[in-house]
Structures are given as structure tokens and as C-alpha cells.
């Protein structure tokens, strides 16, 4: 079992689907499609005028019913156009993505919206409009989403510069080899991270009115249809967040109510938009690893995994690439599955919070989490932000012993061999913790009445809205990347894809319990593999700080606890990524939030949100 060439298993030799699709499409649309022949690129380039038609054909005739990611790229100085890149999948058959692209000029960039084909394009197109300035014709609600109306420019364009701009690429010359570190504030005329257009004055400036956000909300909805007969109700607009104890961070929702019934809901986000992608395009490839920790900050380990995989795909285009050694893959999967357990325990605990069982269930749910964090800390050096994986492996082997430092007076100081620790954690503590939660919660009357039949997402809708992860699978769609488009050592591991069929909050709760159990099953199979591979290498090639990444594009995706986490990375052969985009499951799952909440009571909103399980670091990026 040792020394298995892991990467080879992942279907490298499969027939090229692009050629087939292209042949089928060019019959119907002879001038509209052509293959993307740039070096290191793949997929199909579609003429904008035919974009909607081709997309519809892809969906209806060729079975690509699931739009996973849609993002924009700015090719300034490399053809001087903007490009929209779409990744679509066949959700029932599985398999790799089909990539198609549409080009538009940088000035007055416009493309047709694909919302009519895949409603899941909604938030993603708004993001591309906000950050890249592409207008989408036919989009019903094309407003800025991460920034605010009135913001100056579209920051992800390559010629857009921040107030603290120093240089396009890191490391900055002033620091390395210059060594002249300065504070960015010193070079800014305002001493702050701000810059204004030259002709900007406060006199005569009227800031955009908050009311404009509320304007037009809930219009066109018949009050009478929703109201109970004979009951007089009132239309009310309620604002939840961004400071609210149950929005799981700085998330905001504007809800139009009819009495207590929800007519419409609009998510407002960007309160934690920390410019991950812009910063990521300046970082060298390896420098960006710690930033991925901070996307879904509950699951840093598996974020690392996805990013490492994306860059490894690029590296594989080069000649001297070696896939990660077997032990490294075992450790990666170990970390990813532990992360899933941590995340789901957290999600269940805080769902109960949202249901009104304030904090006690959460305390039980996150108790075992501390043990796993101890293991992360002993291995990677940090509880939360692990920064553990590298291209071609992981940076450090598991420690021999898990040792504690007596930091707290009531802490039991731990000092035991790592494998013993893992044995007892995986075989005893975790199963016991899940059973305990199951026993306390699943049959609870409150759970059942608040959750059953609430926030239902039917399977067709779950697919159309591009939801992923537990949300998708709780709606009866057994789609799990670990099985549908396998990576790492998952093909040789024995586990079931958890699936539930009602698509309500209750099923989204149950499926998380199921998934923890499946993860434990995987973890158990990893223990003997860890023992067998002890002492084997954990990283391939040299530990170069800046590997030479060949030109091209790559999309690496993993089944993160919250759904499909994808990294779309373009390299132009330089030190850093030309384009770095994160397909964040939390963000895209929110597309369906409004549909799930409609017709329910206001008190259900937080429960529905809790059952989607979002984390703002990833939503806003």
C-alpha cells in the first residue's frame, strides 16, 4: 500500500471531455465556440452573443446542470480584455469540470447574464460587477455586493491601485533585499489607508442614503396572498445585522415582513471583505498559504489542502513535478477529516444557539474540538491558523508526543505518544461525543418542531442555486467531490456519501451528524496507514520557498466541510499568481437563502441561516 503513485489514480488518463463537447457544440453553433489554445489553458471560448444559447445547450443537452464557479479575469497587457470564466459540472454523473469563457473589452465591459440558465450565477455575477466592473445584461439586481455603492473604481482590475500601494509583487524591494521597512501610513498624505479622487471635496458631497438600500424591497409581492384570512397585517422592513448575535459574524439581512411572515430577504455582505484576492495576487505562491487559513477560519487545514492542490495542478504542467509522497497524502486527509469533525461540531452547537438553546449545547459540542486543536497545535504550531501544507506535501511530520504545558491551573497536562492520543481520540472520544449529541438533540421536541419542514430546499433548486456540501446533500443530491471527482487517497478509503432527502433544517442537522460519523470511519482507516508509513518522506522535491510555477490555469477543489472550496489560479510564469480566485461555498450557498426563508416566520431566519452554516471570512473574503 505504501508508495502508491497517488496523483495517477485521479483520472489523468481519462478521455478529454473538452474535445467531445466542443465537437457537439460546434455542430450547432459553428462560429460561436472554439477551443482555448493558450499554453496551459483548457476549455472552450464562447462568443458573448451566443453565451446564453450555448450555456442552455450545455445544461439541457449535454447535462452540465451545475454551475460551480463564475469569475472574471483581467488580462491587462496580455490581450487587454476581461474574461469571464465558468466552471460547470454534471452533478449526477460526477467527473471533472467543463470550463468555458467569454471575452469582453475592458472599456464598457458587458456580458449577458447567465442567471436565467443557472440562478446560482446571481451573487457571483454581482461580485464580478463589483470588483471587475463587468456589466451583466439581464441581471435583475446588478448592484455592488462586497463594497458599497459610490466606491471609487473596481479594485480587482490590474490597473487599480490601493492607497497603500507599493509594488505589484512581493517581496517589495524596500523590504527585500532593501531592508528599509517603513510603515505604510508614513507615505500616505492622510496618514490612513485612504485615497480620494483628485477632484473630491466634502463640500457638496451627499453620502449615499441608507434608505436607498431599502428602496424597492418587497415590492410586487401581494400582501393578501400571504396573510391569513381575516387577519390584518402590516408590511414591515426589518434589518438584521451586521451586528447581531445570530448572524455568525458580520452578516446582514434585510427582511420584508408581512406581519411575521417573510416576503423577501436580501443578504447584504462585505462587512468582512478583506481583499483576499487582491492581496493573494501580490503574494508569491507560497506566501499565500497562511492567507488561505483565514478564509474559512474554522477549517484552516482543509483550506490549505485546496490551495495546495490547485498550485500542484499548475506545477504538474511543468516537467520536473513530483506528486506528494504517500505519507503526506495520508496526513493531509487526516487533517481534512479532523477539520470536518471540528466544523460540524461547531455548526451543530451554534445551530442550537440560533434555535434559542443559548450556549449550553454549544459548550458540549465544542468540548471535543479542543482536543483536536491540541493536536493541530502540537503538529503545526497553532490552534486555528495552521499554515500546515506545502506544495508537494506538508511542512512537518506529526510530532512523536503530544505534550501540554501547564498554562491553566485546571488543565490536565498531557504527555503521551501521538499515536496513542490519536487512537483514543478517534476510537473512543469522538464517537462518544457524537452519540452524546445525537442522544441529547435529535429527538428533542424543540429541535423537531423548530426544524422539521422549515427552510425546505428541493433538489432541483439546490442544484440550480449552485449550493454545495451538506446543504446540497441534505436535499437529496448525493454529490461529494471526494467521490465524484476524487483526489488524494480518497479512492482507496471506505466511506459512504451521506445523503438526506427532505432538504429542511432538520435534515441539514442530521446530515452533519452522519458526516461526522463517516469522517470518523475514514480516520479509523488512516491510523494503520500512519503506522505503516512512519518515517517516510512528507514532502516531494525540494523545499523551495518559491517554486517555479509554469504558465497556465488550474482549478483545484476539495470537499470542504461547508461545500466545494475551489481555487482558480492563473500563473503567467512569474513569482505570483496573475489571478487568484476563491470559489467560496459559504458565499454561494447564500444564493438560496432568500428562497429558503420565504413564507416562514421571522424567527426562522436565523435557524435557516444557522443550518446553511456560513463563515464570514470566506463569504466576504
Amino acid at each position, binding site marked *: 500500500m505504501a508508495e502508491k503513485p497517488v496523483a495517477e489514480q485521479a483520472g489523468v488518463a481519462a478521455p478529454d471531455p473538452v474535445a467531445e463537447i466542443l465537437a457537439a457544440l460546434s455542430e450547432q453553433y459553428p462560429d460561436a465556440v472554439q477551443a482555448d489554445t493558450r499554453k496551459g489553458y483548457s476549455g472552450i471560448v464562447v462568443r458573448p452573443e451566443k453565451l446564453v444559447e450555448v450555456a442552455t445547450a450545455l445544461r439541457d443537452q449535454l447535462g452540465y446542470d451545475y454551475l460551480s464557479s463564475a469569475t472574471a479575469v483581467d488580462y491587462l497587457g496580455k490581450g487587454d480584455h476581461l474574461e469571464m470564466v465558468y466552471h460547470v459540472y454534471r452533478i449526477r454523473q460526477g467527473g471533472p469540470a467543463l470550463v468555458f469563457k467569454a471575452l469582453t473589452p475592458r472599456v464598457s465591459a458587458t456580458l449577458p447574464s447567465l442567471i436565467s440558465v443557472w440562478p446560482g450565477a446571481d451573487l457571483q455575477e454581482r461580485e464580478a460587477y463589483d470588483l471587475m466592473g463587468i456589466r451583466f445584461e439581464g441581471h435583475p439586481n446588478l448592484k455592488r455586493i462586497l*463594497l458599497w455603492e459610490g466606491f471609487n473604481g473596481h479594485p480587482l482590475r490590474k490597473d487599480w491601485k490601493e492607497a497603500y500601494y507599493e509594488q505589484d509583487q512581493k517581496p517589495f524591494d524596500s523590504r527585500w533585499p532593501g531592508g528599509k521597512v517603513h510603515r505604510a501610513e508614513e507615505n500616505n*498624505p*492622510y496618514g490612513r*489607508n485612504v485615497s480620494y479622487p483628485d477632484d473630491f471635496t466634502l463640500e457638496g458631497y451627499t453620502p449615499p442614503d441608507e434608505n436607498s438600500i431599502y428602496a424597492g424591497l418587497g415590492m410586487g409581492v401581494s400582501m393578501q396572498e400571504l396573510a391569513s384570512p381575516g387577519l390584518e397585517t402590516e408590511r414591515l422592513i426589518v434589518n438584521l445585522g451586521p451586528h447581531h448575535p445570530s448572524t455568525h459574524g458580520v452578516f446582514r439581512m434585510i427582511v420584508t415582513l408581512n406581519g411575521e411572515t417573510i416576503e423577501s430577504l436580501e443578504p447584504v455582505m*462585505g462587512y*468582512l471583505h478583506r*481583499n483576499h484576492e*487582491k492581496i493573494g495576487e501580490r503574494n508569491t505562491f507560497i506566501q499565500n498559504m497562511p492567507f488561505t487559513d483565514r478564509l474559512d477560519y474554522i477549517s484552516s487545514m482543509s483550506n490549505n489542502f485546496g490551495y495546495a492542490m490547485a498550485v500542484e495542478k499548475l506545477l504538474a504542467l511543468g516537467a520536473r513535478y513530483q506528486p506528494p509522497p504517500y505519507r503526506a497524502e495520508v496526513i493531509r486527509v487526516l487533517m481534512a477529516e479532523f477539520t470536518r469533525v471540528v466544523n460540524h461540531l461547531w455548526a451543530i452547537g451554534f445551530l442550537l444557539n440560533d434555535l434559542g438553546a443559548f450556549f449550553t449545547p454549544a459548550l458540549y459540542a465544542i468540548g471535543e474540538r479542543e482536543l483536536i486543536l491540541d493536536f493541530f497545535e502540537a503538529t503545526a504550531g497553532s490552534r486555528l491558523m495552521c499554515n500546515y501544507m506545502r506544495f508537494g506535501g506538508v511542512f512537518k511530520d506529526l510530532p512523536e508526543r503530544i505534550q501540554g504545558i501547564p498554562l491553566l491551573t485546571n488543565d490536565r497536562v498531557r504527555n503521551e505518544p501521538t499515536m496513542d492520543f490519536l487512537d483514543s481520540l478517534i476510537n473512543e472520544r469522538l464517537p462518544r461525543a457524537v452519540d452524546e449529541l445525537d442522544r441529547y438533540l435529535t429527538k428533542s421536541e424543540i429541535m423537531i418542531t423548530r426544524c422539521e419542514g422549515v427552510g425546505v430546499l428541493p433538489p432541483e433548486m439546490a442544484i440550480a442555486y449552485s449550493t454545495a456540501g451538506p446543504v446540497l446533500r441534505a436535499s437529496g443530491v448525493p454529490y461529494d467531490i471526494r467521490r465524484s471527482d476524487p483526489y488524494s487517497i480518497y479512492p482507496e478509503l471506505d466511506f459512504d456519501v451521506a445523503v438526506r432527502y427532505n432538504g429542511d433544517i432538520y435534515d441539514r442537522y442530521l446530515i452533519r451528524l452522519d458526516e461526522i460519523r463517516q469522517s470518523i470511519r475514514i480516520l479509523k482507516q488512516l491510523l494503520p496507514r500512519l503506522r505503516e508509513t512512519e518515517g517516510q518522506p512528507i514532502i516531494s522535491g525540494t523545499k523551495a520557498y518559491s517554486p517555479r510555477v509554469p504558465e497556465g490555469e488550474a482549478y483545484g477543489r476539495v470537499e470542504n466541510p461547508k461545500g466545494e472550496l475551489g481555487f482558480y489560479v492563473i500563473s503567467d510564469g512569474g513569482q505570483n499568481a496573475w489571478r487568484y480566485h476563491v470559489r467560496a461555498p459559504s458565499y454561494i450557498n447564500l444564493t438560496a437563502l432568500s428562497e429558503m426563508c420565504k413564507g416562514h416566520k421571522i424567527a426562522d431566519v436565523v435557524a435557516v441561516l444557522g443550518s446553511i452554516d456560513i463563515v464570514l471570512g470566506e463569504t466576504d473574503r
Partner: protein
Amino acid sequence: MTHDDRGLKGLNNPDYPIPEELQSTIAVTSLDRIYNWTRAKSMWPLLFGLACCAIEMIATAASRYDLSRFGMEVMRASPRQADLLIVSGTVTKKMIVPIVRIYNQMPEPKYVLAMGACASGGGPFKEGYNVVSGIDTFIPVDVYVPGCPPTPQALMHGFLTLQKKIESQSLRTVPWYRSGESEAIPVPILGPDIIDPRQADLIRRHAEQAAASRDTTTPAPTEA
């Protein structure tokens, strides 16, 4: 409040001799001392999380680290009921507007703890176009806790430091017992970029300089 000897002895500020049988119930102390003692040991933090650091804040409040040992576990979701604002994460330009409002809504006396690199100075995301370089550019901070994220132990150390600070204050000098009303922090405005109303003059001067340089085509000094 526990009646343990240590607490009361600590409170017995002028070291007035007290008969042994009364030592567990009586202390002679100053107004400052007893006021600060009660304040410091029953802080009510705002239930307010911003980013990754908030996760460690929650862990600090949970069973293993148990914040209630310091009398700080009563987290309130409403700023009207809170006296400690823990800024636990990256402050963005979009979010600073509500944060300043929340701060203004907190009744005095109030304290601010900047948790982590982001809240203290911008952190790893400092260069971002939507990131504020530290919460102290807008509201005053009492304690900074370094780390990314700070461990629960570090956060607790921050709390204890804050308690020490409170215990050293005097009713005579703290700003909130001066006569007159205290001033609210002006709420920032979302324009082409975030606008701090306190920088209005500076912004005008720069616009004038820019206009002048456009008219005369001679370059104006860029530094204010």
C-alpha cells in the same frame, strides 16, 4: 461576589487594623477602590465578533478556559448593556461605520480591547483597500492583545491587564465624571473611500492643492 479573604484584604486599602473575627466581612477602603473593584470584577463585554479572532474569543468563554472566573462571562448583545467592546478581528471600512455607532451607543464608563493583529494595526490584511489600519484610528483603545489570533491565554491576560488599568483609575480624573456631556465619535461616511469627518479639513486642503496644480500645471507638494 465571593467573600474570600484575599478579595477583602486587598480591598482594605489604608491597612486599617481590623479585628480578626471581622476580617471576612469588613474592610476599610476608599471610594475609588471599592468602585473600581466592583467595576473590574463584573465587566459585561459586548457579544460582538468580527472575524477569526472571534472564534478564539468564543473558545475563551467556553468551558476549558472559562472566562467567568474573572467575572466577565455575561456577554450582552446590546451595546446599551455592555461596558467592554472587544474588537475581535479585521475592521473593514464598511464595518467601521456600525462599529463607531455601536461604540457611541455604549454607556459610560466603557472600555475597548483590541484583540489581535488586525484590530491593533491592520494585521495581515493591512494593505487591503477595504481594511482599516487598526481600530484606534477611530475609537480609543485601552488594551491591545497581540497575536493572530491571540491564544485564549493571551486574551485572558488582556482582560487581567484591563482589570489592572481599571483598578488604577480615579473617579476624580476619569473622563466620564467630568461636568458636561461627553462627545460622541463622529460617524465615518462611506464616500469614494471611507471619510473620517475629523479629517474634513485635510481632505479639503488636498483637493485645493490638486486643483491648483491642475490649473497651473506646476506640481503641488504631495505631502501635507
